[in-house]
């Protein structure tokens, strides 16, 4: 007798995954330190999320509440303070993110990228109509660049080079990171990329 079920098109059961994995994942981060570019990377990923969704700051806080994240996400100010650990920001606070904050932000980014996956996928797809894709990219890059101009220190060479770049390689990299961060496996991948072996 054969029983057929359509299991999943979305990650609905990921918090209770296969028992073979749960114990191994935690051991993977022993003797690791936070990578130098972790806060910068996280802030830019959130900036991309804000570009893809209007009023994303509200959605981010709501999502954080939904997935039961800590008090760091209780108010906009607390959330903004975490983002100000990015040294490229205008309002850099000379602080760094804690392990717990990184874990929470990874979980949040992963959940948001899952929600925005159809949009991210559209931008990354080469099978879409070229004119339509170019229009989407133009809209996306102009919005992202305006957010970068507004919030980052434009006198930094790095920011100036991002803003002057025409091939959008950096923005594409950020979208690829988001697309590979969906779900539990994606969150583990993103978390691993934010740490370094000491």
């Amino acid at each position, binding site marked *: 007798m054969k*029983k057929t079920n359509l*299991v999943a098109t979305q990650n609905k059961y990921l918090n209770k995954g296969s028992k073979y994995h749960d114990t191994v994942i935690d051991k993977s981060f022993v003797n690791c330190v936070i990578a130098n570019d972790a806060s910068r990377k996280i802030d830019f990923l959130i900036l991309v999320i804000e570009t893809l969704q209007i009023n994303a700051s509200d959605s981010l806080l709501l999502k954080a509440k939904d997935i039961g994240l800590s008090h760091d996400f209780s108010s906009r100010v607390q959330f903004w303070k975490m983002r100000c650990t990015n040294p490229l920001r205008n309002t850099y606070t000379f602080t760094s993110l804690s392990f717990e904050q990184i874990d929470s932000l990874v979980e949040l980014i992963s959940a948001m990228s899952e929600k925005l996956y159809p949009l*991210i996928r559209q931008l990354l797809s080469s099978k879409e109509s070229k004119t339509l894709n170019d229009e989407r990219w133009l809209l996306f890059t102009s919005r992202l660049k305006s957010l970068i101009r507004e919030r980052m220190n434009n006198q930094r060479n790095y920011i100036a080079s991002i803003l002057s770049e025409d091939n959008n390689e950096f923005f594409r990299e950020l979208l690829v990171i988001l697309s590979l961060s969906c779900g539990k496996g994606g969150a583990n991948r993103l978390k691993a990329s934010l740490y370094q072996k000491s």
Partner: protein
Amino acid sequence: MIKLSYKIDQDSSSLEISGIPDISNGDSEDTIGILSSWTLKIIGSPILEGEKEHLDNLMQVVLQYSRSYISGIRKQFISNKNIVTITPIANNHKLLLNSSKKGVKPLEIILDDSELSDLTRCLDLLRFHPKFNIRWDIKQERPFSRKYIIKNLSNSTKNYNLFYSLILFLFTSILLIFIPTDNRYELRETTNHSQVLSD
């Protein structure tokens, strides 16, 4: 024994898994613990199917590749028995699958970024979904060492600022050495000659 079959759909990729519960391992009636067959459909490519070992190999390379790609590293990955290879080409990714049957030519599939993420999500669901309790022969996502990242980072993203500044410093220093200086010039104390103007 009920044979179970589950399907995971993710845009361009669709993975169908068939198997039975491993009762000796405590699996429930609706959980696949022993895999009997699998088929993977990627839009625009032939249907892939095989044994557990082949799926293991596919998962090994695709998940390792995605792990590297998220860190900005684009490099080739080859599975244990050279069954599956994934290589970056320009903005795309080439998946090369060698058949274990004799006389069958290797299959080449070109994936773009969206298709790679679809396939990765499919394989992630297979790994973590509670309906599957299969032991996979794959490496867990681990942080890379700084040395590994610097070594494997693509040339375009390498930061050459320090190197350029060093070259500029040496060039300026050498230039200054070769500029002739006037050694005959002597410093003399300036003396004030007061002249008395006499009418």
